């Protein structure tokens, strides 16, 4: 399977601060990839780089086999729903569709109108008069109707009520089932990502902590709890993601490809939310196995 997004050592610097550092990713096509991390971690920056609104300070990025935003053909391959789903407040819904039809070569007007119809949006209503959920649906329609290979969404449901959120994801998933479009969306609500994503990227403090297939991640991460034990006491093929100790007990979240054989550990299942939280709250500990010391933070691929 070819990669829909491929980055190599990408970094983005604003004045003095690095918003994104050393990002190397390989996102396969045909997936719904979730990008999760706390606010300010660099999610919007990474997404901005994929759609060409930003250009990297260092490193290279390749989207759908080409440089982002470099030509009309390239722009046609990528759809984008930005944060707060921007629309032209003064233009009507119909105007937005017309804009899309004029400006996109692969525009499917019939499908767009069908969708708008199903959503019950009034074509003559100005975008500024729509509710938040309706605006988000309009932005989604605009992004989907141009028939992109990749649809990028920046926290599309963050400010929506539960019903609007559910409806948005329903429309999105239906489009994925129907058209096979790849999706890259960011969110800080892991519960939503759990439903829709089959690929995950965790971004903390401008760096990628982990990236991979959701099933594979869930299979290879385990929560171990047992009597107090130092990290050095763990086998070398288990890399520690997160640890917590009391005076008697140790709890670890480890990543390993081999089974846990030590009977002293009780292994409890790890859901996706817990896995993400482990990475988000991981305290920088010197790794016992990895030689990438000197960086403090574990960077796992």
């Amino acid at each position, binding site marked *: 399977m070819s990669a829909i997004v491929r980055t190599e050592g990408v970094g983005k610097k604003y004045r003095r601060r690095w918003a994104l550092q050393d990002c190397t990713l390989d996102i396969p096509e045909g997936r719904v990839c979730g990008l999760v991390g706390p606010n300010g971690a660099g999610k919007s920056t990474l997404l901005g780089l994929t759609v060409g609104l930003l250009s990297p300070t260092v490193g290279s990025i390749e989207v759908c086999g080409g440089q982002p935003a*470099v030509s009309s053909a390239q722009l046609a391959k990528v759809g984008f729903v930005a944060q707060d789903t921007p629309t032209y*407040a003064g233009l009507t819904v119909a105007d937005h569709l017309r*804009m899309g039809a004029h400006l996109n070569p692969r525009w499917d007007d019939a499908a767009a109108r069908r969708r708008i119809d199903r959503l019950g949006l009034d074509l003559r209503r100005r975008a500024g008069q729509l509710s938040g959920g309706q605006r988000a649906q309009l932005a989604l329609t605009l992004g989907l109707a141009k028939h992109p290979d990749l649809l990028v969404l920046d926290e599309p449901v963050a400010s929506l009520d539960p019903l609007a959120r559910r409806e948005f994801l329903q429309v999105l998933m239906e489009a994925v089932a129907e058209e096979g479009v790849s999706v890259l969306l960011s969110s800080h609500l892991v519960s939503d990502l759990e439903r829709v994503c089959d690929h995950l990227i965790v971004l903390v403090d401008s760096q990628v902590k982990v990236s991979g297939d959701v099933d594979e991640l869930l299979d290879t991460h385990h929560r171990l709890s047992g009597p107090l034990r130092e990290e050095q006491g763990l086998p070398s093929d288990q890399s520690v993601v997160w640890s917590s100790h009391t005076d008697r007990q140790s709890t670890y979240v480890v990543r390993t490809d081999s089974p846990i054989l030590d009977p002293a550990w009780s292994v409890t299942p790890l859901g996706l939310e817990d896995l993400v939280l482990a990475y988000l709250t991981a305290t920088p500990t010197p790794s016992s196995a990895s030689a990438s010391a000197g960086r403090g933070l574990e960077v796992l691929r």
Partner: protein
Amino acid sequence: MIWMSWRQARTQIVAVLALVGAACIWLAATGPALARLAHRNTYVYDLLSRNDRLLFNGGIAVLALAPAVLGIFWGGPLVARELETGTYRLAWNQSVTRRRWLAVKLGFAVAATVVAVGILTLAITWWAHPIDGALGSRHGGLPSRLSPIPFAMRGIVPIAYAVFALVLATLVGLVLRRSLPAMAVTLALYAFVQIAVPLWVRPHLVPSTSTTTVISAGTIDGLSMDDAGTITLSTRVAPGNWVLTDQTVDAHGRPAALPTWFNSCLPPPPGPGQARSQAGAVTSRGTLDRCLTRLDRAGYRQHVVYQPASHFWPLQWVETSLYLAGSALLCFLSFWWIRHRLA
């Protein structure tokens, strides 16, 4: 993209065309009468009604402001508004590259501005033509079209000013990313340029004519004395010429002040209760003539540098080219900025 530019600018275009249309109707209604009046009378200035004079000055004001207003209010938000509301994230994801997007948007605005200001300028020039530079029999008159202020409102330069203001505002909006600050900064920059050009640049755009005249009653138009007691002479110039320098030079050709003995040539100001008699006037006139002859023999001349009325159109073309060249440079900068600095 053309449809999109039109749709986004729809309200502005309609408003501007409506105003221009209204102005043209009013001008067309009053113009022919004015032309007839001017045709029949040399000192038409006296015959101008208050309304006409108001319209004349109004026309000047409108044409002074129109290019700036149009350019700044349209160009300022052109890109800045999209940047500050965030809609650029929608616009720049459509399958149009940024530069093409800017090119069409800006091009559309320039075209519309040229048409609107062009029509307005033509109309007002046509209307004011009969009375430009009109003189009154005793005093007063309207400035000729070559003098700095009306020059900026006749012919074709207003169009170039408008395009310049528009492109400048767009670039400033691109850099500052906020509409209101962009409009304010552009206004300041534009005002500076509009003051600097007539002062320092325009006189040199086309070679001026310079003459040296003998000082006599026939050539001198008037005397003036300032608070310090210095007297300056002003030469009689044909109407329609734009005087740049008018100074007294001595026998060696250097600018010099009038000799001190000249002060006694002037008739004393009438004292309280002293009536000015005919005889007194004749005497003072005779004294003045003798003084002027004495000046002439001493080698004093009046040096005048001016742009003749015939240079009106050459000056218009050169200044238009200058502003359009400036606009092209700013355009280029805008394209560079949007591609390389806004990412």
